């Protein structure tokens, strides 16, 4: 029987998990720091949940209020840099993406992570008019997850080619790529007719093809470089446990030079 692979998430899974294994959680603390407390009080209306995680403030907001929250953070709380923004794919579990914005206050050296959930198919508001750095970051998010961004000046693929199919960082996208990805360069350069000639990609790094006499040679079956595969019976070779003991030298063929 074929092994069952959940379609919603084709990434690698732990092959064995102890059934008594309990996953602990990184501690989430109350907001105690004076600066962060003031941030939370300013944004009180929009915040669904707020806590400290490993020294940074995390605030969960509604996906419709991301622009307003980040605007308040920039203009009132001094978060003048948006370090990073991206998404996490939770489509298989909740049919949602989790989006985060990593904000930096340069004067006080404080960092806040703004997190929101976005159902599949919905678009998020761009913060490009607040932070220009979001221009590339949102394009990357669109490219990698297919999340549409409203009011973005130039929403286009950035890392993948323009004619690429699929969004690579989705959990449904396999690491080795789909059918389209595996033939992309052949189709592009030579055309589909050359697929047969060039052959499929080798994704197995330990693959051995004994009929390929260009890349592999075998003791006892010596053929010149690129010659015909030799399937005759093998010369007798005597091995000890680990070493070659007696290689019948007069009988064996000696090639001038394999290459």
């Amino acid at each position, binding site marked *: 029987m074929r092994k069952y692979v959940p379609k919603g998430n084709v990434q690698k899974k732990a092959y064995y998990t102890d059934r008594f294994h309990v996953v602990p*959680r990184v501690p989430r603390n109350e907001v105690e720091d004076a600066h962060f407390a003031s941030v939370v009080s300013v944004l009180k209306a929009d915040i669904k949940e707020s806590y400290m995680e490993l020294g940074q403030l995390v605030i969960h907001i509604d996906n419709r209020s991301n622009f307003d929250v980040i605007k308040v953070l920039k203009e009132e709380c001094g978060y003048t*840099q948006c*370090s990073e923004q991206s998404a*996490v794919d939770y489509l298989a579990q909740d049919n949602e993406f989790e989006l985060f914005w990593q904000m930096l206050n340069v004067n006080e050296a404080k960092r806040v992570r703004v997190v929101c959930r976005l159902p599949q198919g919905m678009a998020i508001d761009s913060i490009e008019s607040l932070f*220009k*750095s979001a*221009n590339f970051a949102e394009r990357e998010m669109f490219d990698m997850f297919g999340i549409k961004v409203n009011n973005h000046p130039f929403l286009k693929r950035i890392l993948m080619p323009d004619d690429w199919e699929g969004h690579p960082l989705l959990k449904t996208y396999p690491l080795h790529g789909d059918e389209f990805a595996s033939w992309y360069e052949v189709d592009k350069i030579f055309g589909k007719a050359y697929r047969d000639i060039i052959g499929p990609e080798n994704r197995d790094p330990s693959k051995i093809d004994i009929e390929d006499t260009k890349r592999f040679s075998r003791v006892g079956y010596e053929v010149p470089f690129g010659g015909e595969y030799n399937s005759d019976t093998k010369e007798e070779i005597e091995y000890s446990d680990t070493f070659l003991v007696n290689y019948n030298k007069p009988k064996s063929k000696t090639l001038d030079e394999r290459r």
Partner: protein
Amino acid sequence: MQQVPNKLTPFFENLNFERDDNTMVINFGPQHPSAHGQLRLVLELDGEQVVKAYPDIGYLHRGIEKMAENMTYNEFLPTTDRLDYIASTSNNYAYALAVEKLLGIEAPRRAQVIRTMLLELNRIISHLFFIATHALDVGAMSVFLYAFREREYAMDLMEDYCGARLTHSAVRIGGVPLDLPKGWIENLAAFCDKVDHEVEHTYEALLSQNRIWRMRLEDVGVISAEDALNWGCTGPMLRGSGVKYDIRKEEPYELYSELDFDIPVSDRCDSYGRYRLYMQEMRESTKILRQLMPMYAKSDSQLMAHAPQYISAPKEQIMTQNYALMQHFVLVTQGMRPPKGEVYVPTESPKGELGFYIKSEGEPYAYRLKCRAPSFFHTGLLQEILVGTYIADVVTIIGTTNIVFGEVDR
């Protein structure tokens, strides 16, 4: 021989090179000797002036973030070498620090000293590479040769420590794999003297007052402090615009809180100011390295943190104790399982703020790993600062941003 037609029609052939408004479109890259890798720029020119610049990236996209989701935490570490391949250890370190923070462990003192040493050595390597390629792009060939000469000495030091010239993997999650070899500290001291001497008597002597160098760099690539923050600039790009923000000082990690060093800042906002900044940073790095040498002698010999749940015991224990061997076996075959949670850890890499965002679901594989690469945002900046400059200054500006495509495209 008859030419067989093929379907080779890249996108730039579809561009309209003649416009009604008398501007010309020029394609720059993705394979251009001064594009610092695989940057492709589509420039719209009015005469010699750039009207519009459109950076096209992704020519080195290798799916590193996807690989992180399919590799255990320790497996992924060598992959981080290939992000910013000019200063590999800083990537290894940033990643290891993020995972350590997630696990809640801290590297022992000696590992911290060695890591800080390697980070600063990598900063010198990267800055030497910056001055070499930047000078070559602007036209100063001999600086290129001199800077690479010194860089080879630094590479020798790295090679003595970890065996590799470029892809170091010199940091592990929880510490460092090896102690410093014999005589390394002495070589490092000699190298520090050499760098200080060369910075003053070769690079600065050749460039700082050089008329051509100053003409080509002064008032070229001007970024105001506000723009730099807005575009997500970090590191020397931000400090070159007068914002004094260095993560080593402001959010200290490793031993930086104990070390005495200055943060050079330039308020010139142009390429020349940034060049001076890089030179000054190399001096600060040697200053840090000199302070670290006595710290090394005073530290304990433990190299890896003691956290049996996550980190294998030292080899002697694995060879002699059954329980340590079992732990090692489980950690190697299944991988460590950090607690559920998310972490973002910024570090100051030679290029700027290099941060790893890791979302863990308690599995041996990261649920999501996002690498916040400084060069990615510096590339985005190009579409703003290239506008209005002349075509000859384009390579200067690309050089001064010091972008590395391994981490831009990931």
